[in-house]
């Protein structure tokens, strides 16, 4: 497995498309961070220095988007690019039969490829965060506190799980579809669907299952909205957004929309406007994190089982 993993790593880092995407991500991230820093400066003008300034660099939108939104959007592309041809490229090159006739277990092939992808994602994300942290240190002149660093670490882990989901999905498609183009298209289609259309679909599904007849009937509206929210959580993009929100913004007290806030929460919201400690933020989002890991594992698991039972020969 390690042999395969090592070869795949070497392949990733020498492939042109990966390097292109890597440069693109770094450039956009730098620009976004630069704009965010300007806005943070503006926002802080005249105020006493508040805590958690450092994290604001990641969540404040620049001209178009914040860094977090950027990763939520482009992260999947990274996963897809590394996974969409994992298995069917070996079929295409006719190396799969040869590879599987070496003294290795069949699952070592898919495990090695997945692991190589995860390691690459980790390297990209760590270097990205380090770069931005360094940039923040210089431009903002603020040293992040331990808690902020811890929050960034949690954010890093969630992001890796998130991109790994897309990697697992792309590998699954590379097993199911024989053609490189089909598996790439399928992954991208799902990416676009989850990123842009999941909201509509969730609303539509909720409207059919729990229709709102009377806009003033609070119970109906709440039930409808809860259902729509639950549906939208199927989308890893939504999950990721809600999971990272409270982690990077200590003032955010709920992962969901305003309507799901319980009276108790609303009450406490009134009473103190102070930041939540990290463990409280974690408490809010841990179901999201678990759900996302579960989605990743399910995706990888389906691919794993399919691959183990699949005929080797291309039909």
């Amino acid at each position, binding site marked *: 497995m390690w*042999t*395969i993993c*090592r*070869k795949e790593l070497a392949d990733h880092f020498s492939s042109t498309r990966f390097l292109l995407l890597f440069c693109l991500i770094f450039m956009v991230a730098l620009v976004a961070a630069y704009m965010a820093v300007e806005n943070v400066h503006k926002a802080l003008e005249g105020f006493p220095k508040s805590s958690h300034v450092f994290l604001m660099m990641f969540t404040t939108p620049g001209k178009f988007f914040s860094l977090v939104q950027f990763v939520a959007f482009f992260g999947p592309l990274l996963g897809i690019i590394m996974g969409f041809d994992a298995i069917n490229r070996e079929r295409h*090159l*006719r*190396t799969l*039969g*040869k*590879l*599987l*006739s*070496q*003294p*290795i*277990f069949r699952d070592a092939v898919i495990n090695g490829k997945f692991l190589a992808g995860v390691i690459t994602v980790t390297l990209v994300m760590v270097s990205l965060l380090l770069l931005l942290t360094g940039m923040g240190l210089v431009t903002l002149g603020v040293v992040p506190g331990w808690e902020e660093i811890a929050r960034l670490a949690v954010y890093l882990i969630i992001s890796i799980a998130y991109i790994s989901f897309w990697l697992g999905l792309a590998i699954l498609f590379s097993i199911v579809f024989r053609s490189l183009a089909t598996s790439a298209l399928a992954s991208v289609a799902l990416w676009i669907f989850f990123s842009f259309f999941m909201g509509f679909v969730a609303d539509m599904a909720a409207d059919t299952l729990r229709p709102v007849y009377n806009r003033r009937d609070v119970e109906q509206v709440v039930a409808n909205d809860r259902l729509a929210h639950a549906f939208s959580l199927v989308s890893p993009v939504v999950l990721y957004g809600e999971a990272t929100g409270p982690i990077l913004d200590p003032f955010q007290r709920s992962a969901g929309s305003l309507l799901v806030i319980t009276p108790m929460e609303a009450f406490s919201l009134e009473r103190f406007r102070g930041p939540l400690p990290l463990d409280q933020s974690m408490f809010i989002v841990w179901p999201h994190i678990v759900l996302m890991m579960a989605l990743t594992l399910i995706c990888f698991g389906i691919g794993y089982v399919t691959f183990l039972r699949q*005929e*080797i*020969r291309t039909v």
Partner: protein
Amino acid sequence: MAAIIQTQGLTRRYGRQTAVEQLDLEVQEGEIFGFLGPNGAGKTTTILMLLGLTEPSAGSARVLGYDPVRDPLPIKRQVGYLPENVGFYDDLTGRENLRYIADLNGIPEPEATEKIESALRTVGLADEGDKLVGAYSRGMRQRLGIAELLVKDPRLLILDEPTLGLDPDGTNKMLDLIRDLNRSRGITVMLSSHLLDQVQRICHRVGIMIKGRLVALGTIEELARRKGADSGRPVLEEIYMRYFREA
């Protein structure tokens, strides 16, 4: 002589179609065995089952004393399998491709380099080892395929159409190479082919498979006697065509 490959009632069905039916086959240690049959006869399917790459629907096989379904790893460690139309990582050099195979077989360092170099020398690619495989000719690819098998010091070679797409000169060289490996290193060889005169030249025994059934098994002389072929030098082509017409 001991049987190195042995199958009993080996059967493989794809849906309603039977690709291999009730195959009883023995290959002896030290021989070159020719596996003949028209397209779609089930040769490749049989080979895949011997390596544990496809599960049989019924029957069983033993390769080097191991069951390919339950115990494929020791088989894969000692058997060199050249698939029909073998492929390589085109963006790596010949040496790098061999290195990957050596790594996958867990061959440790000074030994691996030694084996790679000697394999390249044996197949006559020592000077081209650092070219990208994408730039190799068909004949060079086929020889690189053999080199990949030699890296793991196999006891048994299973070659699926090793001369496919080679020119006459390349074909002859490939056959000489196979015969030489068999003679000088005592490697048992099982090869499938359509090219009867080549098979006749190097194989000690042949099996003829038609539509999933093994219709004949033995030395060429034996088969000729059984079929009452013309006297004089028996010609495999004639024997084959007789079986083919009967099937």
